[in-house]
């Protein structure tokens, strides 16, 4: 494991011998391809890479990666991964799950993994539906959604995964979508480079149970107008002609402006590295549904001590100061007495 030159790999090296079992046309395929094609670029070893998932269509992902992998149980992948990352800080641990897996049954593990800043890379496949169980609404489904379990429309307010993650003290939060391989790869690369918990929300089309959920913003001809690309250090602008942007109004709220009206100096400059997550949060509130202009990119990327490293630092420090554990001594650490024959 200490060999320093990482052998060159190709997509094929990262592809397992198991044939994907997703529906034809499912967005999961393009995410898989994006990941398999990215891995050779990351300069990492297959044997040091682990994919952990919960249950759902998305969660089949690890089977198709020729790395170490575990298809665990519904909702628990962030917790399983936390244990693995703490035990083995030398590994790259990726966590895969759908919106039901991660935000419904697994919501608690997710927010705790984020606040702890465990070194796991979480890819949240958000298709706003339960795919594997054949089409119930999920915690990200739009209100009013008619599904098998909500015959007259759902009445729950959905989570905004970006807002939730930021509210849970996440250090790296990004969003991308399954129609743009390059952008996905850029987000995954950034997540991988981040020291700590990184979550990337991926808008993913389920063409069987929720087809076109993101079409209004991710279709090639809509993107320019509807996707607001966040670039660190740059004024936030979008539109076919880059003619619109984000600015803060007098009430301290972020809004979409026409640059022609306000001038480009008024634009908000994106600062993903701001310690204060308030602005990233504010940006996350811009779109309440993927039918409005929607920010994508890295919302937040800040440094904070990484959990597994800290655990292992404590282990090392205690060991250094007390010496490696001595069982004989431990057994004698309470008062003892001797009985002689």
């Amino acid at each position, binding site marked *: 494991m200490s060999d320093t030159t990482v052998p060159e790999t190709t997509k094929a090296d990262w592809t397992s011998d*198991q044939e994907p079992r997703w529906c034809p046309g499912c967005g999961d395929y393009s995410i898989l391809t994006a990941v398999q094609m990215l891995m050779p670029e990351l300069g990492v070893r297959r044997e040091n890479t682990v994919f952990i998932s919960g249950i759902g269509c998305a969660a089949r992902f690890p089977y198709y990666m020729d790395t170490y992998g575990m298809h*665990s*149980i519904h909702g628990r992948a962030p917790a399983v991964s936390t244990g693995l990352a*703490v035990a083995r800080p030398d590994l790259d641990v990726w966590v895969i799950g759908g919106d039901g897996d991660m935000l419904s049954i697994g919501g608690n593990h997710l927010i705790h993994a984020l606040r702890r800043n465990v070194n796991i890379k979480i890819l949240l496949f958000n298709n706003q539906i339960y795919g594997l169980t054949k089409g119930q609404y999920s915690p990200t489904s739009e209100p009013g959604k008619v599904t098998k379990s909500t015959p007259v429309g759902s009445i729950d307010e959905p989570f905004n995964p970006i807002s939730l993650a930021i509210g849970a003290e996440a250090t790296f939060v990004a969003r991308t979508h399954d129609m743009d391989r390059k952008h996905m790869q850029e987000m995954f690369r950034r997540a991988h480079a981040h020291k700590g918990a990184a979550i990337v929300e991926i808008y993913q089309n389920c063409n069987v149970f929720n087809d076109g959920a993101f079409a209004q913003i991710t279709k090639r001809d809509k993107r320019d107008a509807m996707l607001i690309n966040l670039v660190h250090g740059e004024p936030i602008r979008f539109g076919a002609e880059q003619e619109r942007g984000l600015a803060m109004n007098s009430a301290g709220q972020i809004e979409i402006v026409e640059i022609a009206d306000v001038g480009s100096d008024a634009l908000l400059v994106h600062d993903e590295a701001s310690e204060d997550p308030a602005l990233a949060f504010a940006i996350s509130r811009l779109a309440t549904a993927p039918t409005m202009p929607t920010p994508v990119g890295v919302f937040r990327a800040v440094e904070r001590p990484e959990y597994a490293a800290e655990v292992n630092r404590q282990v090392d420090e205690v060991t250094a100061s007390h010496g490696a554990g001595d069982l004989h001594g431990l057994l004698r650490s309470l008062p003892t007495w001797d009985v002689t024959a």
Partner: protein
Amino acid sequence: MTDTAPANLDETSVDHIIIRFAGDSGDGMQLTGDRFTSASALYGNDLATLPDFPAEIRAPAGTLAGVSAFQVQISDHDITTPGDAPSVLVAMNPAALASELHRLLPGGTIIANEDTFDERNLAKAGYANSENPLEDGSLDGYTLIKVPMTSLTKEACAELGVKPRDADRSKNFFALGLVSWMYSRPMETTTDWIKAKFAKNELVVAANTAAFKAGHAFGETAELGAHKVTISPAKLEPGTYTNINGNTALSWGLVAATQLSGIPMFLGSYPITPASDILHELSSKKSFNIRTLQAEDEIAAVASAVGASFGGHIGVTTTSGPGVALKGEAMGLALSLELPLVIVNIQRGGPSTGLPTKTEAADLMMAMYGRHGESPMPIVASYSPAQCFDAAIEACRLALKYRTPVMFLSDGYLANGTEPWKLPDVDSLPAIDVEFATAPNAKNDEGEDVFWPYLRDPVTLARPWAIPGTPGLEHRVGGIEKQDGTGNISYDPDNHAHMVQIRADKVAVIADDIPPTMVTGPDDADLLVLGWGSTWGAITSAVRRATAAGHSVAHAHLTHLNPFPKDLGDVLKRYPKVIVPEMNLGQLSKLVRAEYLVDAQTVSKVKGQPFTAAEIYDVIVGALQ
């Protein structure tokens, strides 16, 4: 030779004594009992303890609900229980007297803090019209020693400049001093301990020491000489001893397993009474290559342990009944992944929140069956506080060797109770050999070397443990049914039947790898008492007594509940009668009845209290009539 015969108070030397310290939750009775026990241990007595406290951090002062008690038996010979009925009751307030008196032996001694027997406290303790039992003759059947502990303590502390309110907190040391005097305990053990424990606050050291000495002096001067007795050190096997409770022994057993296997340990845990102390203990054992995670809940606790096991650690999770009830699904995953995992259940009174600080052993059936599908898991149970050490090592050994989750059962009584433990020679502990897979183990259709994660060892049926970081052995595992060998997802009916059977067999073959049933007593006895877990002490004591009384009784005790030892069926069928004392409504008896069609009869006690030897003795005698 028995645990309960009353100590003869007239003699200056007795063979054992059972003392119960009782007071308000705020009175420090657990600490008092603990110190007395330590002094006795260091003095060389055999002993056993039973802490007994309420679920609240501090229930309303002076009420019956707030009474906290600690019972200890010390003896000059080998004993196995904290004793049935105490012969001495230290009662720090009226509530303590009211709630504990019924346990005291007829003719036993009451040492009461008479300062607290005022109207208000008497009323709180439920004495009608605030009748004072210390004065109304109702205790005539006992030896009553009234001591103004509070005022004497305050007096002793006054000259140190300690405020009366603060001095009040030292009165338990007065009681300890007095009792230490009565039983001729060495004083330094305690005074040294006070010095070390309260090192940060000199005044507290001074106050507690003064109170302790005042109590001692009170015995000396108040003509209590008639009550003074000595108990010689016990003739225990030669060796170095320490006084240990079950949770500490268990924790150390886990530490030992880490060392013996060379496999790092990962503990994922969520605090819960009475298991939390294992988390506490292991979180301070970082230098033993142990990592601990206080997880967000029990599910995350076990799930993180599964993750760590996948990474090549031995994953452990510790909890009590309600926690196990949450872990079922993840245990099923570990079982399907065939990864090592140890689930420790320190059982407590149930169902639901139940009696969190009281003992019970009613989770055996959940250990066997508390998961969906056919989910067999080995079960190891400890039977005495110190034996938790060995049992923990055994649980880890099975988990590592057979790549399986293992359930470890202890209970509140073992967890908090103590006994002297002859420390093992560390070098003599057998190593646990575990090997990670390092190379491909199969060929694919093209004749290339490949790794099959479910290609099994023919004897143990264990699958290879290939951990991330090992080049060439990349593989995927999951909870969906998989093809034996390749580990690929398989919905094939025959393969599923095969896998269900293999998982059952994998547990069954462990029977070849465990000792035969631990049986004491004659093969042709008239009665067999079958036990498991913490009933061991009481059964042992009762069987000894019955044997002494001329009865022909044998005792079999199980440390492995799944699989059973191979000879168990034969053992059970050897005896005309089998009774099974259990702290539940009859769980082990159900299991052996189903397995061997033996008419094993349940003897139940579900009171949040361990069996006494007397209770079991009576059952034995009754069964033999």
